[in-house]
């Protein structure tokens, strides 16, 4: 069905969509998480670098790449902001609602994008732990 109605995006969502943070890739990542499926139309990839600081493993660097709608790009950008500098345990606790709230809310039909972002982060951390 062709676009009949544009999802109403908050100023914050539009800001992250138009000026995404931490967009790009990491050359030698410590962990990579790739999620999404072509049927829904959103694909996300998160790259992380993990450093030990004061005995805890923290996400020292994080970058994203996304093939997706305005929400998908905005949530990817937001989750990198939320996860950067956090410990792995803290990062794993970030939920779709945290992402949506930080963006001042998402339209209900777009909430699955925030879930995708949280999943991608989980995958990246899982990948890091497997590689260790």
């Amino acid at each position, binding site marked *: 069905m*062709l676009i009949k109605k544009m999802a109403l995006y908050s100023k914050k969502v539009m800001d992250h969509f138009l000026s995404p943070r931490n967009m790009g890739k990491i050359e030698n990542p410590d962990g990579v998480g790739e999620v999404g499926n072509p049927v829904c139309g959103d694909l996300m*990839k998160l790259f992380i670098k993990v450093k030990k600081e004061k005995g805890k493993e923290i996400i020292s660097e994080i970058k994203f790449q996304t093939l997706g709608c305005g929400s998908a790009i905005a949530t990817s950008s937001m989750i990198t902001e939320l996860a950067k500098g956090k410990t792995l345990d803290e990062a794993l606790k970030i939920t779709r609602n945290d992402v949506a709230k930080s963006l001042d809310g998402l339209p209900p039909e777009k909430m699955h994008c925030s879930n995708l972002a949280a999943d991608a982060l989980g995958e990246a951390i899982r990948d890091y732990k497997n590689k260790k």
Partner: protein
Amino acid sequence: MKKTLVYLDYAATTPVDKRVLKKMLPLFSVNFGNASSLHHFGEVAKEAVNNSRKTIADSLGILPEEVVFTSGATESNNLALKGIFKGLSALPKYKNKKLHFIVSAIEHPCVLDSAKNLMADFPNMVEVTFLLPNKEGIVEPKTVTDAIRPNTVLVSLMYVNNEIGTIQPIKEVGQLLLPIKKKRRPTDLPLYFHSDATQAFSYFDCNLDNLGLDLLTFSAHKIYGPKGVGALAVKKGVIIAPVQHGGGHEWKKRSGTLNVSGIVGFGEAVGLAKKERKSNVKKITAQRKYLSQKIEKEIEGAVLNGSPVDRSPNNLNYSFPGIEGESLVLLLSQAGIGVSTGSACSSETLKASHVQLAIGNDHLRAHSSIRFTLGKYLTKKDLDYVAKELKSAVNRLRAISREIKV
């Protein structure tokens, strides 16, 4: 500094032509009567309606009483399918007969959903065959005739597809159906041919007899007329019952106070469309070719959806690998440009365009599709601006997705 605005979504709606608006204005507060009233005020309104009705009837090669005014193409399409079902199933001689409808898989949702709704509400009385188009987006005539059964009562095939602009072989199908129709005896079910010509009227002849049609749908707001008014052309003899009751207007086919100002606007828009058809086809086809050349030159990987040849003068539909449609629509909107997309992300159902999928495109291609539809107010400068902004927006989104390999 004034923001540049370029509207490239003429298939969604069109601006009302100044001349149309001028003709409509007196009907709001001066000649405001109800066209059904017996007094002078009603007579004035009725005359205005009759003039429009005549103009519209003439443009379709039919009689004025074969024009049924509705609130738009959606209502007209609903009336065509549901009205024929109701009309035929109510006749004693067709009692216990299952009614078969043939509908293309690329019809507008109002046709598809009307058919599905009939199937759901009357599972023992309605059968529907959905015809797939070929890869070019054309429903081949043989596909239609192969699907005809003794109990087929309606074939509904749109004239021009609204998403990919492909022109369907209405005349050929009309000709092939004629002998089949003639063979049906009075005791058999009738066979009717309907076409949704909403996207076709600006560019193509819509004479029902030339096309072999029994019913035709079109509306005003796609042809530089106002929103909220359309028509269903119904040839004399077609058995159709009303869907909307209460007053018996439009020869009992569609009750409700006539939208006089809208109908006057509709008539004026039709007159202008017929007059300007040739020149619009020439100008807009040239503009479409110009824009498509620019897009294909500037954007790597751009691929056209639907036949490049059997295509409406005003439609371009491209998939751009590596980007998603909604985000491209948003970026272009920021630049003052209006287009639309077949991406799932932008639809209310989160389903990719059924047309893209029907022509065999996979989800990725459907999601990266953008529809550009041109109209009579565009200039070369507009198109140059769009090509420039499109290139920049696609590159920007591709930078965000570069590492995503699909």
